[in-house]
């Protein structure tokens, strides 16, 4: 599964994207957030509890209860500021 980070989260994590293979018990986006925090201090900071960030699953905005089964790409990002 590919995980992507955008804006300041990309800088904090230290990479724009990475391929990960979480264990089967990581079933939802929320589970993935908790699991990713252990990869590095940068991950822990970017994905900290209470931080204002959202997610997309296969390039569609998703809530943290969305299931990961069959998903190819998950992205994490701060609130949008375009336009």
């Amino acid at each position, binding site marked *: 599964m590919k995980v*992507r980070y*955008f*804006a*300041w989260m990309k800088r904090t994590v230290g990479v724009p994207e990475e391929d990960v293979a979480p264990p089967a018990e990581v079933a939802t986006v929320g589970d993935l957030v908790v699991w990713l925090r252990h990869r590095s201090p940068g991950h822990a900071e970017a994905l900290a509890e209470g931080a*204002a960030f959202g997610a*997309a699953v296969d*390039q*569609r*905005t998703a809530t943290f209860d969305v299931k990961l089964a069959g998903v190819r790409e998950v*992205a994490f*990002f*701060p*609130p*949008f*500021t*375009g*336009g």
Partner: protein
Amino acid sequence: MSVRVQEADFDVGAELSHLTDGNKRIGGLAVFVGLVREMHVREGYHRDRVDAMTLEHYPGMTERALEEIEAEARRRWPLEATLIVHRYGRLEAGDRIVLVAVGSPHREAAFEACEFLVDWLKTKAPFWKLEETPAGEKWVGAHVGDDAAAARWEKKS
């Protein structure tokens, strides 16, 4: 009925001519052009001038999000033509960022749909602004007013 995400500038006159050309059912064309505004941000005791910014986006998701927003506008209003062009990359004060254009037989629908598209793309399309100030780079936080503006179009379920 078109969405584009590009680094290059766009030619407003050419885009609008192309959009309405030959369609004689359009009575009103409402257009929004977003520009990089020179701003002064307070940073502790200093007021910094923002001269430029870099707009990051999520290729693939951006186009999809804009297409969904456009489709929603077409469901809500009787529109003859819609166009969204959004730039990314480094932009300086005075540069164009976004073009939204809506053609409809009637001006009320054109104005409403145009405002709707601008409000929604600010909160639902994956763009992030990194401002350059004399003190360094700074990610822009989400603007509370944008959420309020977008929320007024939410349908009651």
